[in-house]
C-alpha cells in the first residue's frame, strides 16, 4: 500500500486574499522578512496497490479530476510506502 501526500495551491496568477491577511498578521508579529504568504490545501490518502507507478497514476488522476481545479490551482504530491497501522 502507498500513501499519497498532496498539496494544492492557488496558481501564481490568482490573488490569494487569505494569504494576504495572514501575511499582514505575520508582519504585525514583527517578522518583516516574511513575504508572499500563500494558503493551500494538504490532502493525505491511502492507495491500495502494490505497484508504485499505479499509485502515482491514480493520485495524479484524482488531483486532475477532483482535488484541484486547473483554472485556479496547481498541485504536487509525493507517494510513499505505507504500512497500515
Amino acid at each position, binding site marked *: 500500500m502507498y500513501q499519497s501526500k498532496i498539496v494544492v495551491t492557488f496558481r501564481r496568477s*490568482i490573488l490569494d*486574499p487569505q494569504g494576504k491577511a495572514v501575511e499582514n498578521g505575520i508582519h504585525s508579529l514583527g517578522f518583516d522578512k516574511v513575504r508572499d504568504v500563500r494558503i493551500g490545501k494538504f490532502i493525505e490518502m491511502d492507495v491500495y496497490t502494490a505497484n508504485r507507478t499505479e499509485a502515482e497514476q491514480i493520485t495524479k488522476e484524482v488531483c486532475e479530476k*477532483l482535488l484541484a481545479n486547473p483554472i485556479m490551482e496547481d498541485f504536487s504530491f509525493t507517494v510513499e510506502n505505507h504500512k497500515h497501522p
Partner: protein
Amino acid sequence: MNHSSRLKFGIVVFPGSNCDHDAHYATGKILQQDARFIWHKEGSLGDVDVVILPGGFSYGDYLRCGAIARFSPIMKDVVRFAKAGGAVLGICNGFQILTEAGLLPGVLLRNASLQFVCKYVCVRVENAETRFTSKCRNGEVLEIPIAHGDGNYFIESDELKRLEDNRQIVFRYCDGEGKISKASNPNGAMSNIAGVVNTTGNVLGMMPHPERASDPALGHTDGRKILDSVVESLVLQTVLT
C-alpha cells in the same frame, strides 16, 4: 412541450441546497408554471423544459464550492440536457456547480474581502438577447440580492476577451445608474461579472438570486424579469417550431 400548457421547471436538490424551495415557490406560485424537485441521486431529469440548479451550500462547500455536487448522479443527465440545448439556470451555488462541471467557463473564487456578502446589489443587463433576458433592455439596471462567500468570478484574460467578443457576459455589478465601478463590485469579480452564459446561450450562471426578487410581497420584483424571460422565450420557441 405543448404551448398551451405550462412550462415544466425541474429544481435539482443537492444535500445542502437551501434555495430550492425559493426557486420552487417563484416558478410554481409566482409564475404559475409546473415546478418539481429532482433529488440529486436520480439518474434522469424526466420530462422538464427548464432545469434550475439552486443556491445553497451543496456538500457543505467541501473542497471547493460545487466540486463534489458536479459528481452527483443527476449531473450526467444535466450535462446531456444542456448539450442538447435545454435551458439550464444556475443560481449562486448552482453557478459554481456549472463552472465545476465545465458547462460554463471560469471559476468563482473566495470574495476578495473574505467576507460573506448578503445584500441587494444592482446589475446591468449586458446582453438582452438571451433566452434569460429577453424581457429586459440592454443596459437596464436590475436590483437583485446576493448572498455568497465565493462569488469572485475569475477567468484567464484571453478567455475573458472571448467572453466579451461572444457577448457571453450577461450581467455586471453596477451602481444605481448603471455605472460599472470598483465601488459597485461586491466580491472582486473580474470585470464586475455577475452572470455568464455558454456559447450556445442555453446555460446561464449568475450569483444574484432572481427567485428572491420575484414576489411583490417582498418588495422587489426585478428577478421576475429573468424568470419571465425564460418562460416567454421557451413558449415562443415552441410556437415557432
